[in-house]
């Protein structure tokens, strides 16, 4: 059982985008909880709504075309979705910080790294120039940038991809936030740099006792990093469990399929990886029934008629499925 205090409590979040082709149902009722100093991972394929969920919480969805239809996001008891833009400005970057996927485009090309990192310090902590500069040097040192005193005057194009992501991290950590949202921070980096960044985040998380939400499509990354995993599909949470439980005892057919698609070092080399048949759902139509039904190998009549609720299947383990994969028959 988790005895730590809940820091972020997301309740039934629904986000849509109104575009020329119609309405995109991006997030369709996501609830999740995050405890202090806890790391959770949100896993799912591209377009499953994992990024949109967290961008909604941060208030970074462009409105229009986006619209948060319903839901609450309680951060230490305050509903972030009900706050005004001015109130959110005090929370963004100070309490909740975010690191983005592509460090090539997420940093402003015409401002120095030092300036970009010092901005949250100036805005949230009212630091004067000299103090902020000193803090920027410390932060860059903390994330492992060599010679920070000189490198802080560099522009993003003078940094390598890995260094830019480190700088992004330094920027996010500037005000020592309680929650760090990492939106696929390693996707654009090569594998060795990826490992370094993960190691860095783990170290900083432990040092600062920071809660981390790690968004990824890579189940392999999750194992050594997160305590709990949330699997998303078509804007819905389909399974939620601790990391060990999820790997050892997956209950949702989608999770099963994802794990089967993962190359593993302990399996025979000549075995082919299994891909999931079909394509991700078209989110322009509100899913009727279970969204995974068209691609599911266990599908039966009920799946197409009713969307299953997120049901507890074990201790601290929930899955959104009508079929009991352990016993090989539908639930009662």
């Amino acid at each position, binding site marked *: 059982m988790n005895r730590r205090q809940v820091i972020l409590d997301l309740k039934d979040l629904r986000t849509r985008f109104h575009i020329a082709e119609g309405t995109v149902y991006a997030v369709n009722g996501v609830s999740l909880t995050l405890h202090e100093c806890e790391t959770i991972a949100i896993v799912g394929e591209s377009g499953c709504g994992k990024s949109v969920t967290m961008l909604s919480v*941060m208030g970074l969805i462009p409105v229009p075309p986006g619209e948060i239809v319903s839901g609450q996001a309680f951060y230490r008891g305050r509903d972030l979705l009900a706050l005004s833009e001015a109130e959110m*400005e005090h929370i963004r970057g100070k309490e909740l910080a975010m690191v983005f996927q592509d460090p090539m485009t997420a940093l*402003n090309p015409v401002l120095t790294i030092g300036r970009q990192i010092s*901005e949250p310090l100036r*805005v949230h902590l009212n630091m004067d120039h000299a103090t902020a500069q000193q803090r920027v040097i410390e932060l860059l040192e903390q994330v492992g940038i060599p010679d920070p005193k000189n490198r802080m005057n560099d522009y993003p194009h003078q940094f390598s991809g890995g260094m830019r992501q480190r700088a*992004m991290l330094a*920027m996010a950590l500037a005000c020592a936030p309680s929650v760090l949202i990492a939106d696929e921070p390693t996707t654009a980096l090569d594998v060795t740099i990826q490992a370094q960044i993960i190691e860095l985040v783990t170290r900083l998380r432990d040092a600062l006792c920071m809660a981390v939400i790690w968004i990824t499509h890579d189940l392999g990354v999750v194992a050594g990093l997160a305590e709990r995993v949330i699997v998303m599909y078509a804007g819905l949470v389909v399974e939620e469990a601790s990391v060990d439980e999820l790997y050892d005892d997956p209950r949702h057919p989608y999770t099963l399929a994802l794990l089967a698609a993962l190359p593993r070092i302990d399996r025979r080399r000549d075995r082919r990886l299994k891909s999931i048949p079909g394509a991700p759902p078209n989110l322009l139509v509100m899913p009727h029934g279970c969204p995974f039904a068209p691609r599911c190998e266990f599908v039966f009549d009920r799946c197409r008629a009713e969307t299953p609720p997120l049901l507890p299947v074990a201790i601290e383990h929930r899955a959104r499925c009508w079929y009991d994969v352990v016993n090989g028959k539908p639930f009662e």
Partner: protein
Amino acid sequence: MTRYILRRLLQAIPLLFVISLVLFFLMQNMGDPIATMGGRNVTRSADRERLKRQLGLDKPIIVQYLYWLAGNDWAKADLDGDGIAETPGTRRGVLRGDFGLSLVNKKPVTQVIWERLPNTLLLMLTAEAMILIFALLIGIYSALKQYSTFDNIITTITFLFYSMPVFFFALVTMYIFAVNFKKWGLPYLPTVGMFEPTAGKTPLQVAWHMVLPTATLSFGFIAGYSRYIRSAMLEAMGQDYVRTAKAKGLPKPEIVYIHALKNAALPIVTIIALDLPFLLGGAIVTERIFGWPGMGRLFLDHVSRGDTPVVMGILMMIAVAVVIFQLIADILYAWLDPRIRYT
């Protein structure tokens, strides 16, 4: 950087030579300066011959160009027009800073231009300031409120203004603010000149007379630039780094005016730097309509009388300005965008 600037300036020299040569040859087709010298009377053919020899127009074009460029103090000129070149020439040539005398009024070209340049600069710099202020305000605001009522209205109006001919706009404003305002007994705007002769050339008079010409000069550019700024800002505001800035909790003005505008400034600087030098040449249509004694009218008056020295003087001034403003734009790029480096 200094090396880069020096190299660019050196590269400009052959370019200016070619420009001057082409312009000089084209000028030979702009009309006969002698035809209008007699005023209303037809010039007798004997006098024509004499005038041609006195002005050196009987020489081959390439020799005329050479005299214009390098002067004729090393050759003999036929000042009395009797067909024998006996007097030493006095022209020192453009290369030595002598642009020659106007064929129309015998005044030095530099003096003729200097008499008009301040008037044009006054009008043009005021117009340019108006253009930049309003274009930036309108462009940024309508980018931030994309597809709002304000944006839709302003986009339609700028489109209309952008496609409206200058003379039409000038006449419409004259009709409304001068003709009709006078008829309705309202304070009306003047339409001709820089000041009332009875009131004298006071700053207030000049400012009052500048209202309509400035508005006429500005409206098309405001419309064009604001559309340009709007699209540059829209592009910048959609970039990932703007989202990052927002995720940091920066206040909106800082996101818009520092993170987005500094990136959007690059294409804006380009068009402004390309347009600025042409302000020196004055606005031919606007100055003509409002009787403004500027460079545009000077150019028109002298080009129609085939006054090669004055026309060449004006055109070369614009050519040099184009070269210099291009260089300034390139230096501004490097200052705005650290990814650009010159060696």
